[in-house]
């Protein structure tokens, strides 16, 4: 479990998936439509991935494809992948997709992820190195977490280079200390 402490991995597993219970479960309040504190067999519930994952492996539930990988999203990605607001669908679109694909037994999700990433990767590359921040800022709101990390990686290394080229003091106040509060007498 190399990802045990990974914040993004934890957050990705909080994405909800639609499930159907094949077994009843007592003493749990996870079905909002149920009046007792139990889940009936056949109940349709939305569960976070971390819970659904293991229940699925115990054959207690079946999982269907979550909304963010539905036909509409697929068509939009096919039409113009770079313009789709993936962030609002899931900030962990790719990670979530990788985790859910084997659970719903849908190979096309993986193909979808790769084709979306291929196109969006190019867009991130050009925006990161050439476009001014103002023109890129609208595009940035569409990006998933990993995509914006990618954009940021490009930006930060480029600006670190530019800073070095400009010269100036080599030793600086640690950035963790926050903004300098200059007090004038």
């Amino acid at each position, binding site marked *: 479990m190399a990802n045990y*402490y990974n914040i993004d991995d934890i957050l990705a597993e909080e994405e909800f998936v639609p499930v159907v219970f094949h077994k009843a479960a007592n003493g749990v309040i996870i079905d909002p439509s149920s009046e007792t504190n139990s889940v009936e067999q056949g109940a349709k519930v939305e569960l976070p991935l971390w819970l659904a994952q293991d229940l699925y492996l115990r054959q207690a539930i079946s999982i269907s494809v979550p909304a963010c990988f539905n036909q509409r999203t697929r068509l939009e990605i096919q039409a113009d992948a770079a313009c789709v607001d993936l962030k609002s669908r899931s900030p962990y679109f790719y990670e979530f997709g990788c985790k859910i694909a084997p659970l719903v037994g849908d190979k096309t999700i993986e193909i979808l992820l790769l084709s979306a990433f291929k196109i969006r990767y190019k867009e991130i590359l050009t925006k990161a190195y050439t476009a001014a921040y103002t023109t890129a800022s609208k595009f940035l709101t569409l990006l998933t977490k990993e995509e914006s990390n990618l954009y940021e990686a490009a930006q930060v290394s480029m600006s670190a280079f530019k800073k070095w080229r400009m010269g100036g003091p080599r030793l600086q106040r640690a950035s963790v200390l926050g903004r300098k509060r200059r007090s004038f007498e």
Partner: protein
Amino acid sequence: MHGRKAYELVKEFANGDKGHLKIFNNELFEQVIEECNEHHNALQSLIRKMQEEGLEVQTARNADHYGAFIHHLSLIRNKRCLMAYVHNRAEIIRELAWKVGLLHELPGEIQEKFSDLEEQYFKDHSKSLKSYMSQLSLDVNVDMVPPKDPYIKVRVLEDLGSGIILSDKSANFARHSMHFLKRTDAEQYIARGLMEELTG
């Protein structure tokens, strides 16, 4: 939904600026631990119920079993979130020793973000770093940026007075005074924002 509070705790950490700490959310942290206890109790009472019904807990797959299983998973999830919260904060805390230096106490604005245990953790960590360095007879906490000249020009930004003795000189480090100091002496003062390097 199960694990929601734990998620909020992790989310709060994720929303912070990279490498910066927010105030340790003791309230939420305690609530998640409380939730863990509740899951634990629910899990046990379901198991007890199965035992009372004379079922083999290891193999029986009834509604109580799945209920207990859900509580078990929720407990593990909560634990993972708590661990990740503490672990990732500890990583930032250890980095402080390198970024801000061990010369002085940490500034209040950082200290106030710590929980009591984290404060102790930083102290212990600094202590072992210091003893390691003294055994090496080498200060590995300087030259974070590759060195150039052994001496640099600095301006004092906050009144440090004359109580400071550096490796090769002592002076009155009044605010705005300028000095020519050994780079390795000045480095931690600069990192702390008490001096700034002058170039050109």
